[in-house]
């Protein structure tokens, strides 16, 4: 017999909110992975490592920004605009150097080479910030400063609602980019036939660098938004590498809609799983991944284009 409080509305509402928040983070961590694979045919195992990098950069920035400003708007702008922009530039440089030769090789070798990139990034992070967990100081922590509000009888974190909102904006923004803008349409064409687009005289390398850097920047954005409500540890990277693969496999490789739906599924599974079956909560995620690959290898939406 389940106690009535467990079935009560506030409790379920709380888990749904947690699930949405977790889904938002998963979306940030994995959307770029699926786009880079779908459009550029690169399976970048190291993708979610940039989520971890974003988290560390955010902790460092917020802990050093106190002397300049503690205004909430400024702090949020740093997380949402400044850090992703910085990582965007970094990613563009990496695409031209480290990742450039990987576009030419088979997916299996891409997996292995980018596994090497994970190992390198892991140590770069440890070198810069140490191996012990670090967190954002209370004075410049937007999550603590914003507090909670009361919604239908349960207290809801304002900051985490903000993160969910940014994820929704990001998903809508990407969708509009693909259907409305020229660059988006070129990217869609590239996912269909890369060489044909190249032959039409379009500078595919420029589009490639843009898509790759944008994808990495979104992952870093996710990490930056994640960290005020958590701590940055080297394990975060490895955890999200695995989870982001679960997301894109369940959603279907290369599908924007797939990432949104799969993030929601895994977010909810984990949120309710932690509450009701904590011992096997992670196992459910991988079991789901196994079932999808066996029963429907193309994933929920993988046989469709990037945005259909």
């Amino acid at each position: 017999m389940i106690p009535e409080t467990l079935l009560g509305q506030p409790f379920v509402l709380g888990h749904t909110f947690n699930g949405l928040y977790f889904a938002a983070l998963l979306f940030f961590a994995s959307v770029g992975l699926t786009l880079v694979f779908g459009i550029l045919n690169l399976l970048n195992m190291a993708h979610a490592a940039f989520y971890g990098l974003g988290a560390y950069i955010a902790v460092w920035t917020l802990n050093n920004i106190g002397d300049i400003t503690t205004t909430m708007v400024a702090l949020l702008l740093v997380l949402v605009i400044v850090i992703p922009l910085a990582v965007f530039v970094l990613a563009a440089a990496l695409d031209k150097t480290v990742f450039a030769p990987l576009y030419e090789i088979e997916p299996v070798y891409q997996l292995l080479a980018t596994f090497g990139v994970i190992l390198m990034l892991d140590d770069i992070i440890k070198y810069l910030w140490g191996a012990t967990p670090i967190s954002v100081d209370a004075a410049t922590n937007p999550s603590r400063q914003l507090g909670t509000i009361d919604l239908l009888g349960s207290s809801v974190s304002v900051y985490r609602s903000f993160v969910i909102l940014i994820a929704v904006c990001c998903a809508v923004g990407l969708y509009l980019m693909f259907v409305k803008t020229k660059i988006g349409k070129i990217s869609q064409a590239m996912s269909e036939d890369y060489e044909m687009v190249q032959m039409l005289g379009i500078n595919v390398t420029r589009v490639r660098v843009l898509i790759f850097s944008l994808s990495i920047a979104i992952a870093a954005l996710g990490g930056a938004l994640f960290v005020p409500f958590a701590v940055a540890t080297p394990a975060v990277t490895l955890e999200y590498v695995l989870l982001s693969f679960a997301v894109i496999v369940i959603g279907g490789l290369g599908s924007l809609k797939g990432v949104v739906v799969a993030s929601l599924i895994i977010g909810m599974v984990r949120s309710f799983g932690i509450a009701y079956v904590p011992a096997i909560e992670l196992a459910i995620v991988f079991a789901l991944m196994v079932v999808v690959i066996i029963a429907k290898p193309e994933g929920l939406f993988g046989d469709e284009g990037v945005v259909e």
Partner: protein
Amino acid sequence: MSTRLPTFGNVGLAETLQNRRLLAGIVVFVVLALYPAMTLNAYHTRLLTWIMCFAIAAMGFNIVLGYTGLLSFGHAAFFGTGMYTVVLVMGRVGITDLVAVMVIAMVVSGLVGAIIGVLTVKTHEIYFALLTLALAQLLYILAVRDIGGLTRGTDGIGVTRPDFFGIPISELPAQIYLLGFYYHVVLVALAATIVLLWFVLRSPFGLTLKMIRENETRAEMTGVPVLRYRVYSMILSAMVVGLGGALYAVLIGHITPEYLDWTMSGEIVFMALLGGIGTFFGPVVGAGGFILLQELALSYTEYWHFTMGLVLFIVVLTLRENGIWGGAKTLVERLNDRRGEQ
């Protein structure tokens, strides 16, 4: 559909008995067998034992990648199964004879291999990699969360020393146990694995696996039961990797779920690739290269992950399926050719 990873020459059985190679093998075996007694260096002996355990695992892994053409990112499942079987059989069941424990570990790993083999049989390329990854990760979670109460979670379990045909070797002093006994057990296991796989992979069975790697559709059309052979290859691979894990468990004496984690799978892949997945001895060389490189990097810097990552990245982009062993072979051939011309 198969990934065109490595390329092998078609080596006939006559060539396998080529005297020079056999002789070289015997010399290497004898030198290795005498090494601990000659040097009495416990550190080196321990390092060599460690390398040989992983050499067995990497060779087993390469049956699936190098010969059948499928990249598994879940072989930690078999390595870890071998390890946990040793602990549980000795601790819970009470069988403590080394040989019996090893045989049981291989059988159990083979069973896990059969299950994973059947579940993954229809997937290819990255889907195969991701499915094996997910399945292995399920086992890892079972071990971490201690579901079933067998593994004691992240604390891990200690391994006691085994017996050997009723001889109480577990009472030997630690140095003599390692230098005089356990090192040689692992050496014989490695030699047996090499000889066995040499013949198995040159038999019609091994050639069929290569055919599946080169062109699965064609293999299917010529009447090869492809799916069944893929499961066989997974079982054989799992048994060998499980043996490596079981031997390693007895060596280190303590087991944690980390050996089931996907980063462990990554290390096994790394070793095989470093040595050369397109060569027979590559994985052995790779295991040695990996562990020596790790020890070397660790003695200079705590940031050995970076070094290893860089090496992996460079190997993938330059040597590809040849690895260092294949690269060295090509180099020697070229030098010979040049000498011939002069």
